[in-house]
């Protein structure tokens, strides 16, 4: 079997044996989805549109937890324990290790996406207004951007402590201030400016436009920001990858 497939199989089994991915990658987003759905769909004041918009936000929570937390923490742990050092003296490429870890974490993000979608659909009668094709394409784009940030953090951090610090900063600021949990629309103007800096805010804007069927043409700026995340993240990760 090829190196990459073997990595996927073995590392996947190891990651899925851990409880973190289940709690943060799957359970947390689905519980939040249920809560949001309950609060927003029943609250007349919030209006139906807020509920509809929240779907685009809640499906990014699992992506955030796995991409920005799971990926860098696993890589930093392997570096800390000298496992990457052992891989350094083999023919394996860092890209194979990074992409395998990325794909494994992604598998749980996808389970959470399906879970959230089922909750919204079955419990609260959510209907996507836009085209599913365009929406999924946008979602894929946002996922790649978030994972690029996570892979960059994982490649750069010297030890586990700074992996914890940097991935927590990235995770919590984006969880709270990019509209993933607290909607952008209800934030005061000042906070909205701050939120405009965070890449995920742009991702959620795009997803909201795609989910409500608005044309993405006025989202060009958001697309550019996310594309920059991907380019800087992946190029930086390849250039500065540290084995130990």
């Amino acid at each position, binding site marked *: 079997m090829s*190196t990459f*497939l073997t990595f996927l199989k073995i590392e996947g089994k*190891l990651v899925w044996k851990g409880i973190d991915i289940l709690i943060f990658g799957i359970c947390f987003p689905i519980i939040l989805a249920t809560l949001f759905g309950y609060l927003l769909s029943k609250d007349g004041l919030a209006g139906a549109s807020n509920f509809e918009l929240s779907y685009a936000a809640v499906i990014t929570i699992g992506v955030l937890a796995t991409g920005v937390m799971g990926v860098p923490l696993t890589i930093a742990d392997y570096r800390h324990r000298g496992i990457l050092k052992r891989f350094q003296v083999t023919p394996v490429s860092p890209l194979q290790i990074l992409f395998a870890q990325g794909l494994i974490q992604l598998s749980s993000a996808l389970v959470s996406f399906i879970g959230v979608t089922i909750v919204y659909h079955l419990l609260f009668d959510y209907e996507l207004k836009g085209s599913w094709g365009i929406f999924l394409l946008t979602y894929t784009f946002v996922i790649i951007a978030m994972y690029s940030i996570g892979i960059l953090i994982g490649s750069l951090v010297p030890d586990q402590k700074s992996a914890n610090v940097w991935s927590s900063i990235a995770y919590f600021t984006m969880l709270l201030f990019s509209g993933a949990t607290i909607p952008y629309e209800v934030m005061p103007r000042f906070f909205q400016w701050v939120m405009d800096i965070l890449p995920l805010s742009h991702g959620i804007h795009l997803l909201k436009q795609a989910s409500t069927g608005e044309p993405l043409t006025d989202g060009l700026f958001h697309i550019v920001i996310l594309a920059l995340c991907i380019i800087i993240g992946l190029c930086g990760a390849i250039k500065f990858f540290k084995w130990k």
Partner: protein
Amino acid sequence: MILTVKKLSVTYGAKEAVDNISFSIKPGEVIGLLGANGAGKSSTIAAVLGIEKSNYEELTMLGKSPIRHRKEVFQEVGVQFQETNFQEGLSVREACEQWESLYKQTADVPLLLQTFGLVGKETQLVKSLSGGERQRLAVLLALISNPKLVFLDELTTGLDTKARRLLWKQLLIMKEKGLAIVLTSHYMDEVEALCDKILILKEGKTIFHGTIQEVIHVSKKATLENAYLYFAGEEDWV
């Protein structure tokens, strides 16, 4: 030459951890790096492997640079580090499978497991193995690619007498077939059993470089152990 190291130095801040070391080995040859703890053995190995930054005049393995041609060189070079950590929850079989997948050609793994006394342990978690078993697994993984050159950093530390003898026997068979070995050891019986040449280090510098007969002859001592202590400057302690 399968490995050539010329004027290799490693500096940590102001400290010269490895100072101007040179050595080379041919196929089927075994060189032992000896010295007290902190003498620079592991730093030398790390620098030769390209893990540690170093200055050198020449550093080639199988005719290539291990730094610039990392992927090609390590197809045919195996490494066992002094301390081997494994992923949490990894089983013996998975460790072998993962390492096998890294190389174009691999040795007969069931045979290796038998040689290293790990048959029947395949489904066990690596962390549940005894210290000696984990050490043998680390050596096994270093040999899984049928390498032409292997680095063994303290290969039998933590092994019982029988396991050490077994490992020596296996390495000597592979040496006969042309395997070149760079090893570090604190056990002089091991050095006598395996090494053609030795390099004694003290504070990063080469104190002696030659064969076992030579070291005994030059030091005018009766045994290798005494000759080593004479050169390593630990004699006063005995």
